[in-house]
């Protein structure tokens, strides 16, 4: 095993180009577990800790450019307003110690369906900034996950940042685990209201081979909200709408039975979380509308 310690992003790209099998290591919270337990012996470890750029974020007009290695604890602390869904998801990641090391780049690189950030990224809308010595490109999050622990990166590419749409409405995130802290998701659900486009986006984790959006559920809800004039009148969501949305979210799952939970439970729990997060976000949206109207 060789330990590569690039001092800059350019050096990192060069190293990855030279050794496409090199495994990038940033927070180490996935890679080191595999090494400690003898599950993996990469030929090269590519340490990204010395690249300061990866730990920085910029808040732009429409989106946040989040460096791949920004630790979850910093997202929770500093980006709660801009990225509320991701901040909530960050808070459910493992333990304080892990949140101090791990970042979204690692979740994306590993591309485990159980990665906590994925549902929040899917719901908010994001693009992954991937780069190699050949150049830089932006991969829409919807195209990023290609299979169980597989993603759209080319062997010579590294994740530099994620561009996440700034919240234009309430976002929520919930995750089921069989413990009240430090637990891998049995399943997870993210939901974002986008009042500007009058759309709702979702993300489901750990309930399919890859993180997925509940497209049919989104379409249904978008239509129902439009039809009922909900965005304008700010009425309480009808229970039947919430129920059907939840059922469609469950139907979007393609889960397995494993030691963490049954497929049947996962489908069920995703439905419950879909209904609850819809209620929470919508109530919040109505509250905001009332506040705005009250001020006007």
């Amino acid at each position: 095993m060789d330990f590569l310690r690039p001092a800059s992003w350019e050096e990192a790209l060069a190293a990855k180009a030279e050794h496409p099998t090199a495994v990038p290591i940033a927070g180490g919270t996935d890679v080191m577990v595999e090494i400690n337990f003898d599950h993996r012996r990469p030929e090269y470890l590519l340490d990204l800790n010395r690249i300061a750029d990866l730990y920085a974020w910029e808040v732009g007009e429409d989106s946040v450019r989040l460096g791949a290695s920004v630790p979850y604890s910093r997202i929770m602390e500093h980006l709660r307003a801009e990225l509320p869904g991701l901040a909530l998801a960050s808070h459910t990641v493992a333990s304080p110690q892990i949140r101090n090391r791990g970042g979204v780049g690692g979740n994306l690189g590993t591309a485990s369906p159980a990665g906590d950030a994925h549902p929040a990224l899917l719901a908010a809308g994001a693009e992954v900034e991937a780069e190699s010595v050949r150049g830089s490109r932006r991969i829409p999050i919807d195209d990023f996950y290609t299979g169980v622990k597989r993603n759209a990166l080319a062997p010579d590419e590294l994740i530099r940042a994620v561009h996440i749409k700034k919240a234009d409405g309430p976002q929520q995130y919930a995750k089921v685990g069989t413990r009240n802290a430090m637990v891998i998701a049995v399943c997870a659900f993210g939901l974002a209201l986008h009042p500007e486009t009058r759309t709702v986006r979702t993300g489901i984790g750990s309930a399919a081979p890859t993180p997925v959006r509940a497209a049919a559920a989104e379409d249904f809800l978008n239509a129902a909200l439009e039809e009922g004039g909900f965005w304008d009148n700010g009425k309480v969501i009808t229970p039947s709408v919430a129920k059907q949305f939840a059922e469609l979210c469950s139907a979007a799952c393609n889960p397995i039975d494993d030691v963490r939970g049954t497929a049947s439970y996962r489908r069920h729990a995703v439905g419950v979380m879909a209904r609850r997060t819809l209620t929470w976000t919508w109530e919040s949206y109505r509250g905001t509308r009332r506040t705005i109207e009250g001020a006007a």
Partner: protein
Amino acid sequence: MGTTGLPTNITQGVRTKGGIGESTLRPDGTLKVTGEFAYSSDMWHEDMLWGHILRSTVAHANIVSIDTAEALATPGVYAVMTYDDLPTDVKNYGLEIQDTPVLAHGKVRHHGEPVAIVAADHPETARRAAAKIKVEYRELPVITDEASATAPDAILIHENRTDHHVGHVPHPNIVHRQPIVRGDVTEARERADFIVEGEYVFGMQDQAFLGPESGLAVPAQDGGVDLYIATQWLHSDLRQIAPVLGLPEDKVRMTLAGVGGAFGGREDLSMQIHACLLALRTGKPVKIVYNRFESFFGHVHRHPAKLHYEHGATRDGKLTHVKCRIVLDGGAYASASPAVVGNASSLGIGPYVVDDVDIEAIALYTNNPPCGAMRGFGAVQACFAYEAQMDKLADAVGMDRVEFRQRNAMAQGSLLPTGQVVDSPAPVAELLRRVKAMPLPPERQWESSEGADVRQLPGGLSNTTHGEGVVRGVGYAVGIKNVGFSEGFDDYSTARVRLEAVAGEPVVTVHTAMAEVGQGGVTVHAQIARTELGVTQVTIHPADTRVGSAGSTSASRQTYVTGGAVKNACELVREQVLERGRRKFGTYHPAWATAELLLEGGKVVTDAGEVLADLVDVLGDEAVELEREWRHRPTEPFDLRTGQGNGHVQYSFAAHRAVVEVDTELGLVKVIELACAQDVGKALNPLSVVGQIQGGTTQGLGVAVMEEIVVDPKTAKVKNPSFTDYLIPTILDTPTIPVDVLELADEHAPYGLRGIGEAPTLSSTPAVLAAIRNATGLELNRTPVRPEHLTGTA
């Protein structure tokens, strides 16, 4: 000498008297908070090698061949050993039945069984070499339950059994069977107005101590070996290790290294023999440290069980009879299974008076992971089932669940189903009364002005509910645990106590082989020495095999038995000191001959408080030292047909009330409070007593809602050998645990004390289950209960 981490004497001087009954602080506390306390995995020796174990990848197979050539040729590798390299004819070990191969011979019987061992200059070198060992297996069908184990044509897990249980078991794949029959259940059933039946399942729990199996073996010039090890019983290890090495016991010198928890999981050997074999083979010190993955294969677990119960009661709420059958899965090797069967059967109906009982408990041999000792030891599984039954039956009778228990509660003078009289206080009804009388925690504590605090709700930080679906439930349970080794075992301990003057101060040294695993035995020994010898300065000598056996740190027995041995030795030292005082100073004061003399504050005083002499003057330059064995009252085996017999020496009782909040839609549970009332006889160290009760309670909580080793029934392979998927409670899963300590002395025990460590682990689990049933209305006949069980999605 280049060894680090060697245990040293721990001296504790206290200004206060620091005797029994006070909450003195741990003598090893400072070392433990500074990181200087040397655990078994911290041992280091210059020039040491690292040992590594190659384990079977399948559960049941014949070994066709093992090829170690490539591994042995790896640079940095010093030794590779298989069964063929074992030095003597003794190739097995085991606590009671020596059925466990040191290294697999021709066959593996469970997933993760040791097949070969490697010593190398770096752990990674050892791992890579082990990976180069080629083992060819021819797989056999796996036996995973009672049906497959006892089928007429079942493959025998152990052929040619010669142990002393084989003569009375109905099938060679049954390790031991203990029936207990008293009265006439058929007749009693006729008197029952209500009968309830239930089938219960208890999952496989892991001790999950945090300090992994580890140790350092150092070859000695005399051909022997020095072993620094974390264990629960040094002398039991020694008895099993020495014959395999072909060494007399005095050439295997064992010293207890720091122990990072045990809970039963260190009662059996793990890497002890392997480290010694490699050290003797290479002539170099060898360290072995399991990682967490390996630890799940490296020690036995709590027996999973299937339990069938039938309870009957009259209209006025008196139990008529209990009939039950308890099937424990012992896995591939016997370990402590026979004794676990003894406990499960003799304590199988709980702390209740029932004249007519018919109990049967068996332990199976299967290809599942071997199971043995864990805190609660056979009494835990039964308690989960009989307490569920008691709730069901109370409901059938139409009586309050606590009142129903109290009406049938055992008391001093009651008979166990074994016919044994409970001859010390048994305040079962009082404990229930006390735990029920504690104020209930306020409702909806998660509500705040800023909305719901998810940290206090089911799901916790995962943000699954803001109060939706949350229902509160309350449940009660009580249990009975035996203290000490039962069934006629010669359960003794040994203490060596030395009293001497050092730099003008009297100092006591207490030397025992007791394994301090965190329970606080070292604290208590110092307290006993202070009380008995009136000396503030007490040195606790490291535990080793240079003193007689202390027995195991298990069965809630150490404070009773080794504490008793220390007390006894101190009393004898005191007699000798006073005798010396009489010889030296007797002529100066008549009280030497006439008064009752005590040792207090470093002086010889009369019972009237008159000081006769300074202890240091009595002692002079000559220490008083002696070593003595001490035993509790003898017990006897249970009759193999009827289960009758005075098998136990003491009992421990605890009751719990659990308050839970369940997210009924998602099936997530938050335990809000787990109140406990326990009779401890006499709290030698109240702070430690409460700590033990809270810790035991939490392990019971774990197996109620999350802890289970999952074994694939098709392959007998473990599916979750890691802390990612074997979950134990975090601080956010653990509630407040108010403890009400009752002290009713047992006149047969030193200071009236009662062994306390295990009882709280029994009743905590059924109390939590009862509370979840109360919240959800579901029957819930298995533990741990998982979200899918609460949502109909299993």
